[in-house]
């Protein structure tokens, strides 16, 4: 039991103190990027990993969040806190608008609808040049006083990421999470036991839209400039791959997936050249070899190294209690 308590504490402490032990600004930037991606992926994980809806188009929602933040904070000059809130709100609204028709569709139709959504968003961003700067793009302002340094921005992202992880953890552990997993594994069974399938799917989808909007605000602010080319479809595929590789129905797995997949091509130069080819290959290998994801693989390995003790308790009748119960029944 000691190990189980210690690991989150150590990881948490390491994450909080990261700005002091990161070797250079680039690594800190990478950590910020992982954090911003994770804010989106944590929400998307409920949609993809738990309820099994294969959304490949969340990059569209990320773009909407980033542009909303850039326009509200940069062009309109409102406070960044308002900008983040609006980005989240607009993300959730767009999630609702996308989810209402498309969540009724079966698997492949849904994936195609979200893919089309991502393409439509970049089309509209290009077309509405007066608002979004068209192909030239928009500068995105940073955050005010305590968060204006790279370290400060990192901590802000850490706070938001921690909050959203906590929210999704609460959703996943209890009734909702069980319901979503039931929807993923068998819609018919889920309906039969009284889970409101469409409402549950729509609710987590809107929530994922909110986190995608907030992630867009953070992401845009880290990049400090957004163009339509930032939000290519392959980025949406990347989010999706992180979850599938990390393991469906888990929270730790996708987080590790996000961190590793973001950092790996940046730190290993040959992989950066291969880029999305590498992600495709990784996805294919995972789907063919360990469809449950790497998180599940680690669990299996741990079980093999340190098997769970299965207690062998002999079942003996407690004669005294039985006698007492019978006596009480007679009286």
């Amino acid at each position, binding site marked *: 039991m000691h190990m189980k308590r210690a690991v989150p504490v150590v990881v948490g402490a390491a994450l909080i103190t990261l700005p002091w032990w990161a070797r250079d600004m680039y690594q800190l930037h990478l950590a910020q990027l992982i954090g911003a991606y994770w804010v989106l992926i944590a929400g998307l994980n409920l949609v993809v990993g738990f309820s*099994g809806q*294969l959304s*490949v188009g969340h990059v569209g929602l990320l773009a909407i969040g980033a542009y909303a933040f850039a326009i509200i904070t940069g062009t309109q000059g409102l406070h960044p806190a308002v900008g983040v809130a609006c980005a989240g709100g607009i993300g959730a609204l767009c999630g609702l608008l996308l989810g209402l*028709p498309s969540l009724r*569709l079966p*698997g*492949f*139709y849904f*994936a*195609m*609808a979200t*893919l*089309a*959504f991502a*393409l*439509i968003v970049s*089309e*509209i961003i*290009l*077309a509405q040049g007066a608002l979004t700067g068209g192909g030239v793009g928009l500068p995105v302002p940073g955050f005010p006083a305590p968060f204006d340094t790279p370290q400060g921005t990192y901590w802000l992202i850490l706070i938001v990421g921690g909050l959203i992880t906590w929210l999704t953890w609460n959703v996943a552990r209890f009734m909702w999470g069980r319901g979503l997993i039931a929807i993923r594994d068998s819609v*018919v069974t889920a309906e039969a036991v009284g889970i409101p399938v469409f409402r549950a799917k729509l609710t987590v989808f809107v929530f994922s839209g909110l986190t995608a909007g907030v992630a867009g605000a953070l992401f845009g602010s880290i990049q400090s400039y957004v163009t339509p080319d930032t939000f290519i*479809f*392959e980025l949406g*595929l990347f989010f999706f791959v992180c979850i*599938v590789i990390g393991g469906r129905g888990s929270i730790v797995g996708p987080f590790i997936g996000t961190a590793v997949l973001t950092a790996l091509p940046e730190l290993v130069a040959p992989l950066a*050249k*291969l*880029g*999305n*080819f590498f*992600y*495709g*290959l990784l*996805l*294919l290998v995972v*789907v*063919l070899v360990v*469809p449950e994801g790497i998180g599940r693989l680690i669990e299996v390995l741990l079980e093999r190294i340190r098997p769970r003790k299965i207690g062998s308790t002999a079942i003996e009748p407690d004669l005294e209690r039985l006698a007492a119960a019978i006596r009480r029944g007679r009286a």
Partner: protein
Amino acid sequence: MLIALVSGLAAGALYAAAALVYNVMFSTSKVLSVTTGHTSMLGGVFGAWFLSTWNLPILVALLGSVLIGAVFGFVTDLVAIRRVLSRTDEHLWLLSTLALATMVQQAVALWWGTEPKPFPRLIPQSFSAGVVDQKYWLPVVVALLMALGLDVFYRRTLYGKLFVAMSEDIFAARARGIPTDRIRALSYVLSGAMGGLAGFAAGQLTFAYFALGLTLTLNGFIALAVGGLGSNVGALVGGAALGILSSIATYYVGGEYQQTISVGLLMLVLLLKPEGLFGSRNVRPV
């Protein structure tokens, strides 16, 4: 206006061809593969490569493109479909074909470059031919020929009948001694060859461009869903409707909202007639 209509019809023919490719794969495996558009992309890119870099005769280049498509179809079945279908999780084939499609697209981008490259003329013709330019009528003719050929294939040949049998009931087909794995591989080879042929024929319209695959996967799917899954007539009608609608919209509104309009068409059809114009409503046993 006329030129907009004709170019829309040509693009629509390419979408219809992609929808036919979907149909052939779907008939034996009940899988809608993300790699559909990428077979045509390979046909176009390799066609341009054979013709302009290697200076091969047109017929040889055509056969080469078709062969590349067929090989890719076979690889799709081998890598992304066979193992996944034997495990019966309904979402996994989407992931595996998506992964394969991404790999092919990126590999072509690394090798061929990310710029669209021109596709040589197939038939000597002046570039000022206008409406009767070969780049417009070639895809239409090929799509029609493919639909006709499929019809003859399904009605007249033994293998065609095996395809139909598998699409009706795969368990019954297996019980009657049909080697379902081999027939499915054959259907993927056939669909890949069709995709390669369509990509070759439409090469002058689309250019040899690595990112064509994903758009074609999406637009072919829209054509398929509008026309009705499993119906070849529906694929032709859906493709033509989609192509003409989006080119008319481009003519009147401008090119910025092309994708939005085609998805709007899809949503409208799914709302009014979820099984598509020519599809059959299937009742799912529970």
